[in-house]
């Protein structure tokens, strides 16, 4: 029997008195790939940040249960240690901190096991080779001076090093050219297995040519209004969100 990994129940999030998520329900089992699609302003990034534990997104109502544990009140680092990962739409630049130093600290912290410099260098190089990243990225400052595409690749690199149970990809495909998308998609596929799950949050469906989702959800005005298979993504591709809105809203 497949085991539930993430269970979001009736989640309501307010930002500055405005309700952004209005009772969202989402269940993800181990080994599944989910796609969450929605137009701008529908609450996609709010969901991503809330799942990761951003302090600005306070839970007004509802539960987030991860691996059977209620994690509403856990900080981001505690969630990361339990296996949640967020690939950021706009990753932060951290001057003076190298990719390698940062990731070694993160890996040590997430696994609770010390990772020595030399062994980690080797691990990092393997992962970078798979993503076709030049070795010099390891010694560059985290995201500083990276192009949009390089930042996204760097997020996938972090994901492949940290090996989370649930990876949330927030618009990881935006700003990538076709070649980069296929490399990123390959990277995502390598992380995913029958225990690990992926939630792809996207505006378009560029990644869908490479990933075979088990479920596609449509987010409109803070609620998932429709869940289906890949045919739902195709429908949006052909007919746009407006059509979906009239069809499924209320």
């Amino acid at each position, binding site marked *: 029997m497949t085991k539930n990994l993430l269970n979001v129940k009736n989640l309501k999030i307010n930002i500055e008195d405005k309700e952004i998520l209005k009772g969202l329900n989402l269940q993800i089992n181990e080994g599944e790939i989910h796609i969450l699609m929605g137009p701008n302003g529908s609450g996609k990034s709010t969901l991503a940040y809330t799942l990761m534990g951003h302090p*600005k997104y306070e839970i007004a109502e509802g539960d987030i249960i991860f691996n059977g544990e209620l994690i509403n009140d856990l*900080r*981001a680092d505690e969630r990361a240690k339990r296996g949640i990962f967020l690939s950021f739409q706009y990753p932060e*630049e951290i*001057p003076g*901190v190298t990719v390698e130093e940062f990731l070694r600290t*993160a890996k040590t*912290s997430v696994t609770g096991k010390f990772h020595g410099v030399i062994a980690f260098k080797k691990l990092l190089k393997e992962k970078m080779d798979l993503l076709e990243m030049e070795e010099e990225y390891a010694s560059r400052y985290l995201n500083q001076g990276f192009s949009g595409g390089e930042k996204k690749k760097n997020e996938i690199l972090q994901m492949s090093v940290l090996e989370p149970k649930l990876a949330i990809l927030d618009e990881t495909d935006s700003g990538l050219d076709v070649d980069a998308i296929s490399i990123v998609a390959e990277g995502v596929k390598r992380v995913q297995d029958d225990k690990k799950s992926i939630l792809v949050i996207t505006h378009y469906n560029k990644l869908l040519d490479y990933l075979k989702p088990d479920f596609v959800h449509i987010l409109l005005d803070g609620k998932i209004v429709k869940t289906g298979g890949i045919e739902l993504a195709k429908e949006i591709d052909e007919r746009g969100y407006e059509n979906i809105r009239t069809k499924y809203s209320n």
Partner: protein
Amino acid sequence: MERRKTYIEDVDRGIYDIKNKFTYRYKSDKGLTPEIIIEISKEKDEPKWMTDFRLKSLEIYSSKPVPTWGADLSGLDMDNIITYVRPDADMGDSWDDVPEDIKKTFELLGIPQAERESLAGVGAQYDSEIVYHNIKQELVDQGVIYTDMETALHQYEDIVREHFMQLIPPNDHKFAALHGAVWSGGSFVYVPEGVNVDIPLQSYFRLNAPGAGQFEHTLIIVEKGANLHFIEGCSAPQYRVTNLHAGCVELYVRENARLRYSTIENWSRNMYNLNTKRAIVDKNGTIEWISGSFGSKVTMLYPMSILKGEGAKSEFTGVTFASTGQYLDTGTKVVHAAPHTISSINSKSISKNGGHAFYRGLLKVTPDAYGCKSTVSCESLMLDNESASDTVPVIKLDNDNIDIGHEAKIGRISDEAIFYLMSRGINEEEAKAMIVRGFVEPITKELPLEYAVELNNLINIELEGSIG
């Protein structure tokens, strides 16, 4: 306005806070009179010109008002500062000759170990006098002199007399005058023409006596084509009474010579650190300042480079960390007094828990100093909403044939950056420390490894108290 209650946390400063029992062989009375000055000079068996110099300086000191343009110095009561404390020790060139408790302090500070592993010579000052001075024989053989100022005054009187307080005359400001009157200890370095001292010399100044002042004088002369890296370290344990540090550093960099002067000052939070440092650089010579200001209640420190010879160069790299109850007013001054001189200034400051970091800089170009180049960059990082930061970089140009780049940035630590790091499993404290370490990385990478480690440790000590 409602005043928020502020908590003054006692940061565990570990080894820096170890207090030894206050023992001394001789100490002056509190306060300042000509009699005290004469007594100090007599105690040190000084030539008459020096005694006269001290008395003249005292006159200037008494006639000058306390400066009010910078930090608030009203908490400094000179009548209650002991200006001279001779430790109960003679100067030796073997650590075995240094009294046990003093030796132990320096051991905890890592000085003898650093000497064995990575230094060409070490001077260690405890309160007002140097208790240890040693230099590798091969440098002595090349004519390098590294000794305490008292010895220099007797053995190299002519050189000292020619240079002592010529760059920083007593009438420069009130605390320079004070220094001229009561100076004691410090290091004297002379590097002869063409000699390359390839491993650093270090002097460490430790103030143990409560309510005392430390007024060490450092005089360094690097002759033509010679090269030296000098490291200065300072610390003191925490007392309830006010301590004062008003040292002077005078650096002479001759033609084609290069001097790197690195400092990590880590005073306790009861210290008024009013230090004056100045370098004069001849043709094609280079001065590099690396300056870390930690601790102290008040710091006013602006190392100055006078680029006197054509093609002379100055590089300043500074980091300042101000926390609760601290007002750190730091920066640098550069005078381009000759054509084609080059300067670069890179300053970073961090403030947290109500600390105030103030960057004050001066860049001056004289009328005939054409074709000069200067880049100035000052960045401040505030770790919370209670802390403050200011930047006042003054630029005075007397000719317009100069290429200047200037950049100043003041910002608060980004919550988004903290969240980004936390989302990778790194806790908040470590995330902040990582961002701060990254912020000062351009400075740590300039330091020899063990000082880079010390700087990072100090940042970690400072940050530990900030969470919770």
